[in-house]
């Protein structure tokens, strides 16, 4: 049960931790250098994490009902919707960060709200699975200790990876941090889009599209590196055409924000 808990929780926590540290690093580099702007304080992030955890508990609790919606496609549809909102939230956040820098002093409320939406939904989506798993494990007393140990180990690895990513990002100059951070956010949006397509295909709401390539021989998705790359840039060993197209489209959407273009000028 230990390894199961490690893999399961690492999958979920790593993605959220990496996203959080990239957002923190980008925001950290926005504030003090631009006239009259202030950074979003840590309270915004804390609020987002707390609402995310509550959201995850709620989603886990409602899962049996949600599963049966739309002729058993409820889970996929709701998850796909959340993915789309996260992409929209990331886009809005980057857009408003830029507007904020040019106009009003102080943290931009819109950018803050978009940030909260992105983090909350990411944690809700990922966390619900952890809640369901832990809840199921509680019924098997012998499995509780190994599972909790596994959760601790996975949590430690996930959070440490997030901290190290954050410190490496803010270690660069402002422009480089913004460049790398925004590219990572764009890749993350691409990942979300590809997952949306996958979910809709799984629920048969989207037609099958042919598989583009198979890199399982090169790097399996379930290896540690594979998991890390999946969490960071949405690595997929066997992507379909629709997944690849949507991935690129979401990336281009993020790359179209003035902030992104400015960081590469």
């Amino acid at each position: 049960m230990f390894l199961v808990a490690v893999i399961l929780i690492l999958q979920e926590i790593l993605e959220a931790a990496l996203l959080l540290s990239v957002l923190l690093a980008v925001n950290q580099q926005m504030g003090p250098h631009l006239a009259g702007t202030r950074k979003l304080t840590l309270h915004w992030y804390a609020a987002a994490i707390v609402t995310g955890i509550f959201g995850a508990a709620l989603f886990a609790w409602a899962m049996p009902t949600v599963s049966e919606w739309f002729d058993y496609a409820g889970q996929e549809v709701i998850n796909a919707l959340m993915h789309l909102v996260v992409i929209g939230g990331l886009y809005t956040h980057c857009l408003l960060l830029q507007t904020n820098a040019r106009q009003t002093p102080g943290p931009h409320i819109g950018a803050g709200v978009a940030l909260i939406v992105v983090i909350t939904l990411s944690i809700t989506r990922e966390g619900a699975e952890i809640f369901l798993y832990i809840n199921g494990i509680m019924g098997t007393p012998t499995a509780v200790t190994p599972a909790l140990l596994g959760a601790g180990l996975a949590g430690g690895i996930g959070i440490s990876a997030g901290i190290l990513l954050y410190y490496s990002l803010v270690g660069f100059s402002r422009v480089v941090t913004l460049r790398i951070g925004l590219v990572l956010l764009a890749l993350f949006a691409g990942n979300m889009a590809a997952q949306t397509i996958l979910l809709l295909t799984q629920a048969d709401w989207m037609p099958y599209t042919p598989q583009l390539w198979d890199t399982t021989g090169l790097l399996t998705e379930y290896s540690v590196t594979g998991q890390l790359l999946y969490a960071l840039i949405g690595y997929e060993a066997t992507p379909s055409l629709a997944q690849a197209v949507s991935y690129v489209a979401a990336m281009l959407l993020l790359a179209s924000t003035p902030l992104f273009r400015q960081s590469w000028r």
Partner: protein
Amino acid sequence: MRSIRQFLLLGALAVLTLFSFIAALRGYQSSMQEAETLFDTQLLDLSQLVANLDVGRVNNDFRLGNNLAFQVWEQQSLLGASHQAPAIDMTPRVQGFDFANFDGYRWRTYARFDEDQNRWIMVAERTDLRFVLAENVVLETVLPILLGIPVTGLLIWLIVSKGLKPLIQLSADLQQKPAHDLTPLQPRETPRELVPVVNAVNGMIQRLGAALEREKRLSADAAHELRTPIAALKIQLHNLAQEVDAHSDSFQQLEQGVERMGHLVEQLMALYRTSPERFDEACVELDLHALAQEVVARWYPLFDAKQQTLELLGDRCLLRGDPFALETLLANLLSNASKYTPEQGRVQVSVLRNADARVEMVVQDNGPGIAAADANHIFERFYRSEHGSHSVPGCGLGLTIVQHVAELHHAEVSVGPSDFGSGAAFRVVFPLQDPR
């Protein structure tokens, strides 16, 4: 980076956690693999044992323990089996290891063909039980790594705190250093990394002190040098008054200009006459109230001319101070009060001991008061309020002198609203002094 301590603690802890946890995970995986091999070997041995059993005498009550099962087949007839074994082949008739589901569990199976007896021997072990068994052993080795992290975190925190102590001490020393204190820093312990910082700061303090001294001397010398030509100018002006129309506008303005220049030079002299080095020599025991009485009497005509009331409250207050400097201080406050208070206004001087038994001198008026925006700047040299009327003459040095003298006496100057509803109150609070 917001905090060095936070960065060192979180960075070190994150690196340590990441690598030790991944190592633990690797250890777990390889140990579990070892355990699997071990269990498989046992299963192999079990098949050997079963092959040598006299299966004819084994009935369905034969118990191996709940975690093990076996079957012995000869062609299609089941010669013997343990109680959980199914009625059909529990694994395909292929020599080797495999997995199978029966009796509500998943089993690791091993099948072997005994050529001597022409029999298939099949043995199985419950995967869940053997997995739990192995995991409990392996987890014992992972646990200390997990539990060690909080302890390590605490230790790193202590080490980082200890390492940062000289830096924190140095910044506290710098922060507590009063603005006029130009003595060099002397930290108790200076690690090698901080020596350049301390040296640089001390060098800067030294240069700053020298520059200030030069500036002072220059101003004082300049003021002193200007006195003679101004005096000469005044005599020339007096002589000129006999020759030209002394009531003409141009002449009046010329006279006022020379007057103002003289005043400025006097003020500059007053500002630099009282230097800290000479202060101790000039210090005597004096009664501030009596001193105030003298100054008030001397300045009374100025107030009378504007029909302003000037009152002095208070009682005998003894303190050590430079009488000439204190006179200048009060004179400047009075001149200020008169200037900024309209005709028929009210000015009050009080010299008292306050609730803390400290000597307090307050000069308050019922003029327009001081705008909040100005309150922070009025003691700066040559600062003149933009809010007040520019018609009021002055050079902007008066309050600087007040502050300078107060600082020499280690007194605190503050400005606030007066008790008269409108106007300003300047408050000079002297420190407690040992009665001698």
